[in-house]
């Protein structure tokens, strides 16, 4: 981005921002409101398409937003984030198929597995910078994808986890009921976004911004850059994994495609569509991406062509994600009216 933009953008940091607590409560309230609206949606619209759509939004949204914690906030362009999406789906699916533990246990255990794997892979990857970080994450992703394909006895190879994922009810929640799954996905999405928003607004979030801007300087004010990068790498992996779990529940299975690089590519693409400079950019991107995908595939066989042209419009026409564009436009308009504070 150019310096010019920065000059235009930037409404001031209010001194009142120092009083941070009300903001957190406000975010929580907004999240609650969004959840209530989403949860009530099925009463208003009977369309099952909408439910399916929101569930997929939850899966992709958590995935894309967590990727933005790396790409947008820390400047770590991961090309391999999809591996954790896949790991979540496979971990959860396998746990449910093989062990028959209750869903919450499988959920926590899957996150624990993701934590371990992300810690090891992250410890190796975050030492590298810039494009090399991108490459090495990509290589790890392909390695994991290769392993999923080769380890047929466990993963079912290219056919994925077959036979459906059992979904015994717990706490009165029955995830084989689509409505329950919908509400659960909404809850996970909202909680996930709230947590990630908290991370982004925490002191650690600012540590990440400093590393993104100037990692060398960050280390000279006492930040252990490697540790901070590893921490966010692992945290982001956990949220991506949660997205994978939702997806596994939705399709009642797990497939190697989840851990393929196209998944990571889609994540990057979503971020670019929505914009990486705002917290909700990736969420907007997710909605945009899924709407595009769904409408274009139903309208034409040549969806690649149409999708490609739309992407070009964003990349060459706007040169930034939608949210970035909107916010800049908004800021410019405000400046134009001379109401800058």
């Amino acid at each position: 981005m150019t310096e010019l933009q920065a000059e235009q953008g930037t409404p001031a940091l209010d001194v009142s921002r120092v009083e941070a607590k009300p903001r957190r409560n406000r975010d929580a309230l907004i999240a609650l409101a969004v959840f209530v609206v989403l949860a009530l949606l099925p009463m208003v619209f009977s369309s099952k398409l909408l439910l399916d759509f929101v569930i997929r939004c939850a899966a992709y949204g958590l995935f894309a937003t967590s990727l933005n914690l790396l790409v947008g906030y820390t400047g770590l362009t991961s090309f391999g984030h999809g591996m954790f999406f896949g790991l979540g789906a496979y971990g959860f699916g396998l746990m449910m198929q093989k062990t028959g533990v209750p869903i919450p246990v499988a959920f926590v255990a899957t996150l624990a597995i993701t934590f371990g794997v992300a810690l090891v892979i992250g410890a190796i990857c975050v030492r590298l910078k810039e494009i090399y970080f991108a490459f090495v994450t990509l290589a790890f992703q392909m390695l994991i994808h290769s392993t999923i394909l080769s380890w047929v006895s466990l993963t079912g190879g290219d056919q994925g986890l077959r036979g459906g994922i059992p979904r015994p009810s717990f706490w009165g929640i029955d995830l084989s009921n689509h409505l329950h799954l919908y509400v659960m996905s909404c809850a996970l999405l909202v909680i996930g976004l709230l947590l990630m928003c908290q991370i982004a607004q925490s002191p650690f979030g600012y540590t990440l911004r400093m590393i993104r801007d100037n990692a060398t300087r960050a280390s000279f004010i006492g930040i252990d850059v490697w540790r901070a990068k590893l921490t966010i790498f692992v945290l982001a992996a956990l949220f991506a994994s949660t997205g994978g779990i939702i997806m596994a529940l939705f399709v009642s299975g797990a497939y190697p495609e989840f851990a393929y690089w196209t998944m990571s590519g889609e994540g990057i693409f979503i971020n670019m569509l929505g914009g990486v400079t705002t917290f909700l950019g990736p969420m907007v991107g997710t909605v945009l991406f899924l709407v595009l995908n769904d409408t274009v595939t139903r309208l034409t066989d040549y969806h690649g062509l149409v999708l490609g042209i739309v992407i070009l419009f964003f990349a060459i026409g706007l040169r930034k994600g939608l949210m970035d564009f909107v916010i800049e436009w908004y800021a410019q308009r405000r400046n134009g009216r001379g109401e800058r504070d």
Partner: protein
Amino acid sequence: MLPLDLDALTGCLASSACLVTQTTSGFIIGMLLFLVAVGLTLIFGVLKVVNFSHGAFYMFGAYFAMTTYQFSGSFALAMLCGAAGTAIIGLIFERGFMSRVYGADVLMQLLVCYAFVLIFDDVVRMIWGPEFKSMGMPAAFQVAPLFIAGGVVPPYYLLLIGVALAAAVVLGLGLVRTRIGKVIRAAAHNPGMVSALGINTGLIYGGVFALGGMLAGLAGALAAPVRSLTPGMGFSVLIESFIVTVIGGMGSILGALIGALLIGLIRSFGSLGFPLFTEGLMYLFMVIVLVSRPTGLFGREVA
């Protein structure tokens, strides 16, 4: 089940016939990869763009060659059209689209490439149809394979290795010896200086893209007689040549050559020793190289 067959591997290493056959087989795989990878690395070296749509150039080269061959029956003309046609596409791609996102976020460049991967695949599907095609081996090469030191080498593959090596040499010498080569190398180091010297950087960028496209197109054209043609065929080639450039070092031509040969040899000997994990082997190798030497075997440390 561990996918291991070390007996086959050691057995082969002990036999000269096997050694020759597998080594040439590694070279064949490697040299085609090199042609694709060298364009990728050149474009990265000069423009700092990771051209994810490079596989599409390879695809176009193959389709152009097939169509030319069908109409003219001339193999040489088919190769020429494959290379030249793709060069033009490369030029249009860079001047018309890529050049508009220089200076923007690097990810925007990726996005443009991604868009064109989708578009190019669909364009090919529109023009040539979704079914796979085959160009067929020209009659001149439908001859019995040669035997060298007990190893089997088909004449067509000798031609293929020769053309790719010639391209490598011409490219290497061209960059070092010629004026235009020097300008390109200078542009890679310091684009500002080149434009300050009154040289049109746009022309150079377009030229480099055309050159890279041409080489990938040539690879596609050379592959057309032995590989089936489908929309999306560039994809797996892109991934492999990408591994090659990363291993060799982004921006290094020698690196691309060595990297391509290494991958070729890993494939040819890996398929003996690790028949079910050859692919994984390549990624493992890439991880090891990246971790121990992030800039690749021949990459320069970026200041």
